[in-house]
């Protein structure tokens, strides 16, 4: 079945891997070039636009590759009626389904994971020209382990929806519609709480800190009300006369990898749930009528 699955999906798999390999090559070249430039302004001049486009591409890539490979995996087979052929051979349903998922999904998920790790390394010399630290959207989403985990969810989701709705295009559209808000929701609502934030009343933040909360407190540390609009002098001076300081909660940069592991784990767990749903569907929902 492995060969059959490979032969059926090889075009999509190879195209997906080509895109990943192309991006990896560009990243590597850029890293060595950027590293050789000592003037920060020159890096910005040369790679400022590149950084913006790379972010756009890498944000879109997991869901694009996921639906491009996952959507047709079962959707097209059912549209063409060839699942009738596959399911009436001697191999069982489960093997048919599992082989297709593994053969089509594994290469691109592994490829995207490697691409994310490569990007953490390749982006190091560009860090100075990026806004915010590694924990901030969109850098967090495109470096490290998350790229692969997002791809895993987009792929399994579109493959399973294809199995249920029996239509490639619908599988792709539904996946995109579900995936985009999910990424936004996780980034804004869950990620700030992956660990208890460090609080500080110091004006100077450590490099790469991700500020997740901000409030005003008095000298004793109790919440205080302060309205910058009511100030007649400069705001720092105004705060000082009222005895109010700004207290921020932040996630320090060194939590990057543990946050990556948590978020990747979350998406892999969701993908696993989707796979379980698919296993159920292949037995109970995949009927001819």
């Amino acid at each position, binding site marked *: 079945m492995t060969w059959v699955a490979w032969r059926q999906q090889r075009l999509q798999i190879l195209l997906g891997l080509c895109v990943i390999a192309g991006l990896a090559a560009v990243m590597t070249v850029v890293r060595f070039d950027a590293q050789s430039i000592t003037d920060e302004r020159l890096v910005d001049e040369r790679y400022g636009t590149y950084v913006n486009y790379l972010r756009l591409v890498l944000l879109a890539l997991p869901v694009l590759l996921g639906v491009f490979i996952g959507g047709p995996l079962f959707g097209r087979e059912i549209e063409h009626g060839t*699942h009738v052929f596959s*399911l009436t051979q001697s*191999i069982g349903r489960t093997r048919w389904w599992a082989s297709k998922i593994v053969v089509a999904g594994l290469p691109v998920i592994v490829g995207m994971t490697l691409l994310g790790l490569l990007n953490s390394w390749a982006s190091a010399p560009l860090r100075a020209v990026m806004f915010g630290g590694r924990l901030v959207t969109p850098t967090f989403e495109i470096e490290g382990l998350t790229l692969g985990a997002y791809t895993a969810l987009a792929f399994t989701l579109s493959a399973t929806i294809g199995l249920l709705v029996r239509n490639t295009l619908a599988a792709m559209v539904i996946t995109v519609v579900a995936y985009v808000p999910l990424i936004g929701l996780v980034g804004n609502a869950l990620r700030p709480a992956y660990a208890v934030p460090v609080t500080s009343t110091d004006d100077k933040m450590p490099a790469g800190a991700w500020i997740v909360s901000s409030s005003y407190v008095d000298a004793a540390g109790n919440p205080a009300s302060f309205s910058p609009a009511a100030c007649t002098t400069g705001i720092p001076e105004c705060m000082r006369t009222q005895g109010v300081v700004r207290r921020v909660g932040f996630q320090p940069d060194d939590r990057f990898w543990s946050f990556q592991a948590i978020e990747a784990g979350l998406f892999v767990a969701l993908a696993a749930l989707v796979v379980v749903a698919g296993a159920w569907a292949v037995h109970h929902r995949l*009927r001819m009528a």
Partner: protein
Amino acid sequence: MTTIALDATALTMRYRRGWGLRDCTFELPAGRISALIGPNGAGKSTLMRIATGLQRQTSGEIRVLGQVPGKHGANRRLAFLGQDKPLFKAFTVEEMLRAGAKLNPGWDDQYAQRLVREADVPFGAKIGTLSGGQRTRVALAIAMGRRPELVMLDEPLADLDPIARQEVMHAVLAEVAETGMTVLLSSHVIADLDGVCDHLLLLADGQVRLQGDVEDLLTQHRVLVGSRELVLPDGVVEARTTGRQATVLARTSDVPGWDNNEPSLEELALAYLRSTRKVAA
């Protein structure tokens, strides 16, 4: 060796829009060529899909070569050729045969290749470029390559030209003669099955209307032609009158006073199919 290849008890398939099969009880003897006859929508495809495990029945039982079709793939000794001969369009014939080999332990590659060669289908051609007849022959070769004990062909001759119909039928018959396998062949064109099949299963509106050995069924029925004044015998299936003459098909032995003739398979099947339609109307 089982003597019954396929048997069902009160097999029922209910769809949201109505009945697919309704309380079907039948037996197909092993080593025979059985015809599954019925109009479009009679439940022929439903029956085959349930037997292959593609679909699960609402109630009742079916056994294929003595086994209940389960979750674990189709019965290894059963081969099925679907109505639209589903094959991977982007594959070449050679790759399609390789897929057959990969998906079926006990695959007979030499045999499958021989069947393709006999059909004059080029091995390098993409499935999508083949004619209907060639595609059917390739699909047949893959079904046969599994060396099945029972092969189910769902409308194998539909959308084929008359010459291709004949060639495909010859190919099937030759292999049956050689291997002694059991065949269930569905069609709504009865003329294609006449002289080919020796067992009959007639479905209409999801119900079994007639079943049995073709020879026996033919000798048990008569086409009676006579004056419309004559008294009808017992066992009338269908009676039609034209002018003063009546033509009756009845399950009976010779009836005195009538002109008695044994029906052809087509006459027999059509009479049963028409009679059910009248009841429904």
